[in-house]
């Protein structure tokens, strides 16, 4: 792999080709992370010079009602969204892998929400969920039921998870399909000759062979879950600039870019990043323990 060793002038090309990436790493990624950590120890409204604030931005978080709401909402959202997305897209991929008639149509249909702007489709979901004359409530009242306040504080979590899962099934489906197609057909032929039932083939061949895809997809979906923003912004924003389901990203957006409390926003962003890093680390440890090769 990569056997060319740069000589003389080629070193210049090497640097030129790599320069954007190195700059991106140094400034865009790691530089920005360190800068955010620095900012999290300050109070800065961008109008007056920054003031040293010590740990106060962090110390204030546990007692901040809005941040607490955002923190628990984010965990609840991820706890529902990740398993739902992974399991449903796995089932869809298993169905598609049976090569039934219409497979191409199904694949396109399931992928459609994934390519569509969540903002635009989110507006459609606001209508589906609208309290007065919303699509769902009209259906419910037509069947004699009572209208539901889909986007109120008590129900918004589930409504928002449904919209987000709806938009994420396509991506997972493709990852699982690629995994399924890389399983050698002989495995199934041998199993069939030995008289293995369908569920046995699924349990002893398909699922173990899909372990790397499942690991990859779970990590990816978890990272996405903690950064979910678009549907939440469109569906749950309230008139006063808050949300019926504020998440950590929503809270960071509000503190940093609506109220320009940069130190507060940076501290929340640091906490969010730590949560994602710790979770990813846990996933990798679990994967090592169970010995699934990825």
């Amino acid at each position, binding site marked *: 792999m990569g056997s060319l060793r740069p000589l003389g002038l080629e070193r210049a090309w090497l640097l030129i080709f790599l320069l954007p990436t190195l700059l991106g790493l140094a400034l865009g990624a790691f530089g*920005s992370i360190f800068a955010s950590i620095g900012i999290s120890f300050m109070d800065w409204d961008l109008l007056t010079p920054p003031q040293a604030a010590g740990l106060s931005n962090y110390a204030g978080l546990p007692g901040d009602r809005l941040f607490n709401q955002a923190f628990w909402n984010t965990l609840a959202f991820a706890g529902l969204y990740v398993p739902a997305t992974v399991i449903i897209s796995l089932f869809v991929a298993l169905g598609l892998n049976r090569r039934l008639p219409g497979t191409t149509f199904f694949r396109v249909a399931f992928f459609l929400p994934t390519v569509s702007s969540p*903002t635009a489709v989110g507006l459609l979901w606001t209508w589906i969920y609208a309290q007065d004359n919303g699509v769902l409530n009209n259906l419910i009242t037509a069947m004699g039921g009572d209208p539901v306040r889909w986007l109120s504080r008590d129900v918004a979590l589930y409504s928002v998870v449904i919209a987000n899962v709806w938009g994420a099934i396509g991506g997972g489906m493709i990852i699982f399909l690629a995994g399924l197609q890389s399983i050698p057909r002989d495995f199934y032929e041998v199993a069939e000759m030995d008289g293995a039932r369908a569920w046995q083939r699924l349990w002893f061949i398909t699922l173990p062979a899909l372990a790397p895809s499942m690991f990859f997809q779970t990590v990816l979906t978890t990272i996405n879950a903690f950064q979910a923003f678009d549907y939440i912004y469109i569906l749950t924003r309230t008139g006063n600039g808050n949300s019926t389901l504020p998440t950590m990203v929503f809270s960071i957006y509000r503190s940093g870019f609506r109220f320009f409390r940069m130190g507060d926003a940076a501290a929340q962003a640091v906490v969010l990043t730590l949560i994602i890093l710790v979770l990813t680390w846990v996933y990798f440890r679990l994967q090592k323990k169970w010995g699934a090769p990825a």
Partner: protein
Amino acid sequence: MNATAKKRAVWGDVLAFAMLTFGALCMVGPFIWMISTSLKPVAQQYDMQLIPQTLTLENYPRLLEIMPIHRQLFNSFTIAAISTFGQLLTCSMAGFIFAVVRFPFRNLIFVLLLITLMVPSQITVIPQFIIFRFLGLYGTQAPLYLPAFLGGAFGTFLMRQYFLTIPIELAEAARIDGASLARIFFTIYLPLAKPALAAFAIFAFMFSWNDLFNALIYLPSNMETTTVTVGLALFQTQYAGQWPLMMAGSLLAVAPIIIVFFLAQRYFIAGISMSGLK
């Protein structure tokens, strides 16, 4: 296969087909509702008919009177096109170097790059916002496309994986003939990587076109210079309840990507599976 096993397999197929059909309806249904509503007069918006009683295109010109959505679509397109160019160029250059050239700290740099995949953009956007504001670029479109010229983990990884499938002997032979790294890249590797470039281009364009978070931060309020995603979000707060108009706007925002998706479906799918496992 014996007779009972065959019967079971058929029932499994029927069950799978029924579930896929139900799922596909849930996926496509909302889009059909969106199209249908955008073609209804506002007076009939609550009639719950899938096929409009009165077909009309009046919502589109009316939307234009309220909001310069044609400007916003153009802005989104410009930003997405420039971003895509920047990503294609810088990610394929880096991917080529990682795949073909041996140099000190190569693995370290590559691992650092992959780590950035786990870093949420909310932590990097805060200092970047401050810098762009300091540079006087707040409220312009530049902060939305300039970062695309600094590479990125997703694209670099994808291009590297593709370049690794090209036999290294090609590069070695070209070098013996006196070709420079730049020449090898532009005349051999880049032309061979067209499928990967196409897949990545579609993704880069889609991410930029659909982006709401960054556009909200940098172009929050000017209807003329902002993107279509922010335009729709602003429209939502001002014209709540005018569903046919809103659906007309939504349709205009999703249509370009969906059209490209239908035309280049296999590149979309290749892009995801290439990034996934190799």
